[in-house]
């Protein structure tokens, strides 16, 4: 500690090590929260349902998506990425997941939302297995922290079915 440079170096190294420890503890403190999110999806209308020339089925629908994800936000949350996926089983694949809509929630105030939209991304099958198909609408979210580990979870909503014939 016998010169400016020596003291400055020691101080800054120690300060940054402590900063790393503070961020680790802040990230661990997130484990003490117990979130209680909720969501509801309603399919209002099947706009069209066809078999594409290349052989795959495609469907377009209008939906109401509402959710309350406010309890997911802590002091260490930067944003929440949320997406809605249609999940179903076909003879070919045991699980198909098609993302229909996604969004980024930057703050707690915007985490309670209700939107009326058509699917943002195309609902296309691998093949033509969608007629009369039962499917689940699953709302997935990824909580992105300011420091630390990102964790993901979902809510499964069952009871949706596609029409028996093309429109």
């Amino acid at each position, binding site marked *: *500690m*016998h010169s*400016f440079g020596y*003291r*400055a170096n*020691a*101080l800054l190294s*120690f*300060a940054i090590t*402590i*900063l790393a*420890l*503070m961020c680790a*503890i*802040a990230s661990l*403190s997130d484990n003490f929260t117990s979130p209680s999110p909720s969501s509801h999806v309603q399919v209002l209308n099947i706009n069209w349902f066809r078999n594409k020339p290349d052989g795959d089925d495609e469907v377009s629908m209008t939906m109401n998506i509402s959710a309350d994800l406010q309890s997911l936000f*802590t*002091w*260490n949350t930067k944003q929440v990425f949320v997406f809605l996926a249609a999940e179903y089983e076909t003879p070919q694949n045991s699980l198909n997941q098609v993302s229909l809509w996604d969004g980024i929630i930057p703050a707690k105030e915007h985490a309670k939302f209700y939107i009326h939209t058509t699917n943002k991304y195309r609902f296309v099958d691998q093949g033509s297995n969608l007629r009369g198909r039962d499917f689940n609408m699953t709302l997935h979210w990824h909580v992105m922290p*300011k420091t630390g580990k990102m964790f993901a979870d979902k809510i499964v909503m069952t009871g949706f079915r596609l029409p028996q014939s093309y429109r």
Partner: protein
Amino acid sequence: MDWQGQKVAEQLMQIMLVVFAIAAFITGYIVGSFELMMYVYAGGVVLTILTTIPNWPFFNRHPLKWLDPSEVEKHPKPQVTSSVSKKKTAKK
């Protein structure tokens, strides 16, 4: 700084940083603002820099004792002899 001052500076630096880190974390957690924690800690680091890095007088309360001048005079430095000029005249 003297030796005692250096030790005090090091201890003061470590204690101040840890105390500010704990205070910053607690206030940030209670208020629920990550930014507040960062600002309080940054302020603490700046305060610690201002307190421990410059050479303040209170770090020099036990100054080093250099030798007295009388001790130095008893052991004089050896003188350089003027043999260079003699060699030049002989060659001529």
